[in-house]
């Protein structure tokens, strides 16, 4: 029965091939794609519910080249998140992609990427993770350059160069690490043991290279500039890239390396976190600050992503339980919040064609539900209670205070203030500013776009009001990896 773990990874691959080969009508393809993703969600939940802890070696050539899948708490967390948000995105994309065209190609790669991302989630050792990580770059590349314009191709190139360079650096770290430990399986608490004492500098280099290598996908400053550039992609893609698949895979890989390969104590011993945290702080501040300067709504959200990912990385690098729970909570929260924000911006683009903040005055009159959800999500991203962003901010701050660092909460709050400064003007322009020019068409967003937006907003508020069931799960995970 262990083979069942392959099902959610293989199934999208097959479905993608079917979509690519058959000539469906638009309606049929939408139904097909939707049901595939829904089925996959059911597979994932079935596996997660009934087969927690199963593992499987697919191919094992030697200790290093070993394709190995495993279900543990972190993969449960990530795979469920990915599957649920993928479903919403697919509903959204059915409507949105109408005006982008080339839907066949889009849906084929879209579903393929789901399989690859689940592969990352279920990977049981570093080499499997690495393989799927590289695959992810390849499968998302056609999505990024979807429009085929010169700008899109240029951004696509940038994305490829950054991602591959990052992965190469990570691979370097991986190879050296393997030569030292002979074991790259994910074990809660890490596989590195007492021999760390001898090679402190070497381990330092390994950790830094892996962190930075995977950090490229997590938009760590100064390796972030692919992310704002990748904004040329269609909105469902950018929301997925930003909220779930790509950046979170980077974070996921870093979490795996930190807590399942090295272990908190080993990282602390190398002292690498002290230096890396500087980069993270710069990411947080720079992202929020430069978001203020962006006129284009999507770009604004892109820079905001850089800063929010910084929060998560900060939580990981603090290496204590509170901060870890906060980081994982923020991974979840940022995913649902950012995907809503992107969906809303996409809905504005789709219905009115406006992309800049100066053009959307008074848009809240016609698109009231969209902008209402946008406002709720903004409030949540700032971290104002009773939404979910507050919970993660609280945990992250407590995590840094446990370490005795008063500066980090201050930076978090400063960034929260900046977040308010770049997000509230959008809501204010939409709701409370008179539209003098009257050029806006009075159109509502289509229902297929509104359903995902409203659903995810409800999740946002629900997670803020009743976070305990997630928190308990994360607490269990945290005590598993840190004693």
């Amino acid at each position, binding site marked *: 029965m262990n083979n069942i773990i392959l099902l959610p990874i293989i199934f999208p691959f097959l479905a993608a091939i079917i979509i690519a080969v058959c000539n469906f009508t638009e309606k049929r393809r939408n139904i097909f794609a939707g049901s595939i993703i829904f089925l996959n969600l059911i597979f994932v939940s079935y596996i997660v519910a009934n087969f927690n802890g199963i593992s499987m070696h697919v191919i094992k050539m030697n200790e290093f080249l070993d394709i190995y899948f495993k279900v543990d708490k972190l993969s449960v967390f990530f795979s469920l998140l990915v599957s649920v948000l993928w479903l919403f995105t697919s509903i959204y994309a059915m409507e949105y992609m109408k005006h982008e065209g080339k839907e066949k190609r889009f849906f084929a790669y879209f579903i393929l990427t789901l399989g690859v991302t689940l592969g990352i989630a279920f990977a049981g050792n570093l080499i499997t993770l690495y393989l799927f990580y590289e695959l992810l770059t390849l499968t998302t590349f056609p999505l990024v350059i979807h429009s085929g314009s010169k700008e899109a191709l240029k951004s696509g190139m940038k994305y490829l160069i950054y991602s591959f360079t990052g992965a190469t650096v990570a691979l370097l770290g991986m190879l050296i690490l393997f030569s030292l430990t002979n074991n790259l399986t994910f074990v809660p608490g890490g596989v590195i043991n007492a021999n760390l004492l001898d090679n402190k500098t070497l381990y330092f280099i390994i950790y830094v290279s892996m962190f930075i290598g995977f950090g490229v996908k997590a938009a760590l400053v100064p390796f972030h*500039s692919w992310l704002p550039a990748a904004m040329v992609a269609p909105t469902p893609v950018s929301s997925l890239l930003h909220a779930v698949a790509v950046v979170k895979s980077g974070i996921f890989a870093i979490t795996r390396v930190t807590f399942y390969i090295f272990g908190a104590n080993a990282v602390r011993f190398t002292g690498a976190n002290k230096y890396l945290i500087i980069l993270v702080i710069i990411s947080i501040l720079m992202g929020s600050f430069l978001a203020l300067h962006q006129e284009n709504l999507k770009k604004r959200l892109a820079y905001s992503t850089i800063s929010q990912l910084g929060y998560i990385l900060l939580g990981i690098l603090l290496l204590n339980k509170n901060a870890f729970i906060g980081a994982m909570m923020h991974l979840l929260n940022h995913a649902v919040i950012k995907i809503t924000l992107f969906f809303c911006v996409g809905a504005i683009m789709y219905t009115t064609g406006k992309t800049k903040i100066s053009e959307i005055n008074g848009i809240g009159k016609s698109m009231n539900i969209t902008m209402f959800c946008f406002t709720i999500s903004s409030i949540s991203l700032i971290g*104002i*209670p009773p939404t979910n962003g*507050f919970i993660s901010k609280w945990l992250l701050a407590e995590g840094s205070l*446990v370490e005795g660092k008063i500066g980090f909460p201050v930076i978090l709050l400063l960034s929260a203030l900046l977040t308010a400064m770049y997000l509230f003007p959008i809501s204010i322009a939409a709701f409370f500013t008179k539209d003098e020019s009257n050029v806006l068409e009075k159109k509502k967003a289509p229902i297929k776009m509104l359903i995902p937006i409203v659903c995810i907003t409800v999740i946002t508020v629900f997670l803020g009001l009743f*976070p305990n069931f997630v928190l308990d799960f994360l607490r269990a995970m945290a005590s598993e990896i840190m004693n």
Partner: protein
Amino acid sequence: MNPQIILVFIILIPLIGSFISFIIGIKDEKARSVFNITMTGANFFIITSLYFNVMNGTVDIFIPNIMGTGLFLKLDMFRYIFVWLTSLIWFLITIYSTQYLLSYKNRNRYYLFFMTTYWSTLGIFLSNNLINLFTFFEIMSLSSYPLIIHDEDKYSHDAGKTYLIMAVSGGLVLLMGLFLLYDFTQTLDIDKIKYVIQDIGNIKYAIAGLIIAGFGVKAGMYPLHLWLPKAHPASPAPASAILSGVLLKTGIFGILVTSEIMGFSDIYISNTLIVLGFITMFLGGFLAMYQRNIKRILAYSSMSQMGYIIVGIGLMGILHEHKAIALYGTIYHIINHMIFKVLLFMSAGVIYMKLHELSINGIGGFGRKRKTLKICFFIGSCAIMGVPGFNGFISKNLLHHALAEAVHLYGGIWLYIGELIFVISSAFTTAYLLKLFIAVFVEKSDHDIENIKMKVTGRALIPMTILAAMIIFIGLNPNFTMNIIYKAAESFYIYDKIDTHFYNLENIKSSLLSISLGTLIYVFFIRRVLKKGSGENWWYENTALNWFSLENDLFIPIFTVIFKISSVVLKFCDVGLLKLITLISNCMNSLLKMPLYYKRKSKALFSRKVNIINDINDYTFEYPTDITYEAKKARYKMNSITYSIYIFGVVLVLCLVVLLYS
């Protein structure tokens, strides 16, 4: 019904009601108004019915799992005063709003946020857990923003921007305080903090500073008051009444809870509060004298009155076992200010309803023949001035006694100065209210008052009459209120009562002293200096406009500089790496493309020397060459060398094979 359940319903009724009213309002505006009045009225009666429960003991309820920490609501007499007044004021203002807002747009949106502010304010006063309190506080801060910018014009957006930035930053500062508090005490239960706060050392001051600053923004405490005089005039009158009457009190409530119930008050914190309170009191009163917009006068007046309350809170800290009187004065003044300031803003609203103008330079003499309005306004003004017989008299006297007690206990020049400021600020109060009252209701003017024919009905006037009646009642029956406050004082562990003969010669004398001083300021300063023109053609000037402004001359320049510098630095982080790589690649490119002149020369020389016959071909060598070109050529040559070696090798191998097998 179980009073604990009712406690939840107090918040839930307006919470659900706000959305229901929004949905009703889309279809039928009249039904919505009726619904809102019924709902706030019902809530008011529910809260009133809790009186005896609270009188007998505390009501509290804990609902686990909400927001991770659970929802912990508590109602004792101290909170009940706030809750009851809030619900009363909201009820009255809802009635008043149905009349006032008739000429406004977006009424439905207004009511949605009006009601959201309502339940979140109730939540602040009820919550016994700091996380809950903070949650409600933030909801209130944000939901009052749409009320402020309701007009959607440039002025209100400007005011709204100041308000929003200050409210959000205030909230974040408060949150920082809560982070630290939780880290050091591991509890957020307001009642428990008292027992652990003494063990955490000097970090206590940082925490107290942050929390009090966070609440101080809402309370309009100097120097965090900047939003206050801007936001009040910008919003519609019912909203300004709410802002001044209730929202400022949430800040005061927070400071009071922090300093006294959570036990932060010690000599340093209390002294800071007293100093800031005196500055707030003096500055508010002083600037109010210069203003010409009725609402702005009232806004500065609110600021000044908040100063009295903050001084009262500070005095509680330094008076130790004698702090009862300061507490009574503080709570009494809070009650009074909630009532009379709402009344005055409602009156200002009536004027605005008629004229759409608020500057006293445009409406002088408007109220000469409007009796009800005149009487209400007169009662409200007398109450703030502290004229004997009105409620302000009692609370100001209590506060004055508390101050005198402090002077008696500690002496010292500073407290004497404080007492002086107290008297002078009271005189300012009298002066600016006289200015307002005489200009609007007494003096004749040639102002072209265009009367918009809008009938002010009972819906606007009855709430005002009720409040006016309350002022008189509380003023004449101080014992009634004092009995409630005695019960409220139990939350502060104070059980001693005080002598309540307020109407004695000494009190009346001190009250009349400041009133006559104020009249002198009015006659000799305001009328002589600020008032221009003569006869019926008069106007006031505001010379304070050109003075040093904390916002324009200090805060904005500082933040602009910080903003610019960080922009440059962070922009560098953003594109620094890319720029560096581009730079390196450009350098390499230009290096490689550098023409290699010497080579050409030598080549030319060579060809000329060796190849004399081919002199005509000399020019064929004259093209410039560079490293890229040379590298290409070299590669080509290398290739041919490689090939030849390769071919040579193959031949060699073949030979070998042939030799071996032949």
